[in-house]
């Protein structure tokens, strides 16, 4: 076969990109297992195995080469993101269904790697929280359950767990504010809350931040999306908080709670479903942050990032089209 220039290639691959992202998730996972519950490791294993099996079967059915596509590790990354979004003690079958939806419906029915318009992990999260709202809202208190109990809950032991589980910080805050005349300040006195946001979750955010910095330094992602996401989230939270600190949580609380850090570095930055131009990335991530705040604060669900991501996924084609950067020589800069 004749090949044409260039005859040299950078030693890089999709597999390497995905592997870098997986490695960047490790600090976060370590903090998660230490601060919140080692059950996450079981969930990660269940999700990964399901994802690989589903990917293999679908590729076989589609008549595509199986091994190279599994080797690119994209299915494992999707699985990990799903597991990290789900409650630590979510029963195994919920994780499994979610992964199957992500891999089969969201990824492969749209044409496989690189072709899906929606973020697979986020579609999985949204479908599960709509289908099983209560199971998806039961979180163990951070570090409050021993590994055996977590394992029992995940693998389908006793589900009478209201006594031992609770809502996330965001959920508790929202329910608390809706239930009566309490203020943010008094709710934050509860045991679910730590110094900044949910107890233990602040550390998790730090873990993800470390991974995110790794991704930035390895140039897997650019600064645009994380910065736009976090700045927009902080800005809008500050505005509401300044107007009424009794009814709205502080920007720090919003940054440290829920999946803000995970989303900033690992979810909005999904290249396949996100905007691609520099300006487009800023608009996309800012849009996600804005919608996420509104859903968190005024919506019916405890965490709004997943819905916000999907809504912004819809806007990607027009964002990209309208934010094309000026081409060399067409910038209208220095002219003769």
């Amino acid at each position, binding site marked *: 076969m*004749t090949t*044409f*220039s*260039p*005859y040299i290639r950078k030693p890089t691959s999709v597999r390497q990109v995905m592997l870098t992202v997986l490695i960047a998730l490790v600090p976060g996972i370590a903090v998660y297992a230490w601060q919140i519950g080692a059950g996450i490791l079981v969930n990660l294993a269940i999700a990964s195995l399901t994802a690989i099996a589903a990917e293999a079967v679908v590729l076989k059915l589609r008549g595509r080469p199986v091994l190279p596509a599994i080797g690119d590790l994209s299915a494992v990354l999707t699985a990990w993101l799903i597991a990290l979004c789900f409650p630590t003690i979510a029963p195994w079958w919920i994780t499994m269904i979610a992964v199957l939806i992500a891999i089969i419906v969201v990824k492969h029915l749209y044409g496989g790697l690189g072709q899906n318009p929606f973020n697979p992990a986020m579609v999985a999260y949204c479908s599960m929280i709509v289908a099983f709202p209560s199971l998806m809202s039961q979180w163990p208190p951070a570090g409050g359950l021993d590994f055996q109990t977590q394992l029992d809950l995940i693998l389908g032991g006793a589900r009478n767990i209201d006594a031992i589980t609770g809502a996330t910080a965001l959920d508790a805050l929202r329910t608390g504010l809706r239930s009566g005349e309490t203020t943010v300040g008094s709710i934050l006195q509860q045991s679910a809350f730590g110094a900044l946001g949910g107890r233990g979750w602040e550390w998790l955010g730090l873990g993800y931040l470390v991974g995110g910095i790794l991704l930035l330094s390895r140039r897997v992602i*650019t600064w645009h999306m994380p910065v736009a996401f976090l700045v927009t989230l902080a800005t809008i939270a500050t505005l509401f908080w300044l107007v009424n600190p009794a009814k709205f949580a502080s920007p720090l609380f919003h940054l440290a709670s829920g999946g803000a850090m995970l989303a900033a570095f690992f979810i909005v930055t999904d*290249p396949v479903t996100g905007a*691609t131009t520099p300006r487009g990335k800023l608009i996309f991530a800012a849009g996600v942050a804005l919608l996420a705040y509104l859903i968190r604060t005024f919506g019916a669900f405890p965490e709004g990032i997943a819905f916000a991501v999907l809504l912004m996924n819809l806007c990607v084609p027009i964002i990209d089209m309208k934010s094309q950067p000026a081409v*060399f*020589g067409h910038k209208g800069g220095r002219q003769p």
Partner: protein
Amino acid sequence: MISRLFKFHGGIKPDSHKSESADFPIRPAPIPPQLVVPLRQNARAIAHCIVEPGERVLKGQRIGKAQGALGTAVHAPTSGTVVEITNRPMAHPSGLDTRCVVIEPDGEDRWIERHPIDPLDTDRAVTLAHLRDAGVVGMGGAAFPSHIKLGDGTGIETLILNGAECEPWITCDDRLMRERAAAILDGAVILCDLIGARRIVVGIEDNKPEAIAAMRAAAEPLEHAIQIVPVPTLYPAGGEKQLIKVLTGIEIAHGRLGSAYGVQCFNVGTGHAVHRAIRAGEPVVSRVVTLTGNVSNPGNFEALIGTPIETLLPLAGPKADTNRYLLGGPMMGFALPDLSVPLVKGTNCVIAASDALFPPPPPELPCIRCTSCARACPADLQPFELYWFSRSHNFGKAQEYHLFDCIECGCCTFVCPSHIPLVDYFRFAKSEIWARERDIQAASEARNRFEFRNFRQEREKAEKAARLAAKAAETKAKIAKEPDAPSADPENSPADAKKALIAAALERAKQQKAAIEPKNTANLSPETQAEIDEIEARRQEQRLPELESTPPGPDEGASEKQEPVR
């Protein structure tokens, strides 16, 4: 003065592989047993051959005269005999043939009489003609005639000398600058005066400290405002537009030339060629070429134009596992389809390639829109978008996304984690668009032709009708004037007139037919005539009247009902 440098977007840093060949001085390549000098030295012009097979030529003797607006002269690279003028494959990815003068050297390498000129003392037009007739073209690769780039000598403020040499492996400009800095700068000064520029800026990538030092030393004693500027090593800093951006901050839009912005750019090799042509009166008959890659003895060689690449290769000693040769650098060069192609003025490098040095690219995977390509693109394009459009044959959209601003530098393909040969898609899309434009052009020409044909037929019909009407009227008048015409009735009714006309026409036709004798029976010898008569007689006897029937009439209407040509 250049006080700060600018940045172009993107760029890549491949392994430079310069040291392999840069550490050895330029060596002369021996005269090959046969030289093949193409009359075509660039894509736009072909020289007019002025020698004939068998003619003796001297080194530097003109064998091709410049013709056309972008033509330059072509010279015999050494003394010898013209063997033939024939078509040979040229150094182009297509391997297509071009007209070449084949010269068998006599080994004496005897120069023709050389005429140096003093540019300060010579009319500008004469100097430009001298450059044209010395065959001076851009030695960086494009081989564009230098005298054309010099324009009318106004409007240029900065002359940029391109010594960036950003492609990996290539070191011919590096060596030239190290060894012949004074000659290069002298050529640059001549160009600077001819173009009317105020200053000379030499851009050299900072991975060539020896070249920078040599050029600085050579610039020291000169009175002209010459600045040697190290530019960051970042491919493709040596692209003309990229270098101009880095040095001056000016971005030259697609389809425009540097001269419109007050800058003009020449390669350092061109400066050297200008120096030789003006000061020594020597036309371009040789150039420095890098032989490197999978070879045991890499280096730079001064070789005669027209030297077949295959006779150059033994100088560097390709290793056994070499399986193809690249002409130019690995980023923008191409694999030689044929090793017999000659060295031309734009050939800067031949790389012996093996699968170990240049591994075949891994299989192509789907695009994941990671935007690595967009971050690497020096033209600020979104290559992955162009890829989607090219792949789906959505060429209109590809053009809307500035496909033609792509300079095919290869950065996007280099960085793609999915190993997509993006540039191949863009070359495909560009050639498809060109083909379609040609089709549209051809179709519109065909339509014009067809419409003109219809118009012509209509016109001829009208003219014929008018002619016939006039003739009929004339005949009618004639008949009316002759009262004792044979068929004229007292009333002279129109029907009778018509009958008379028909009768007259029939009579004319009969006479015409009688006048035209069948050609093959004309001028027969008496014997043949006698034979024919005899046959005729026999035929009469045997009563075969059917053979006597009239010859078949002419084909009727066959040409009228043709399908229109598209």
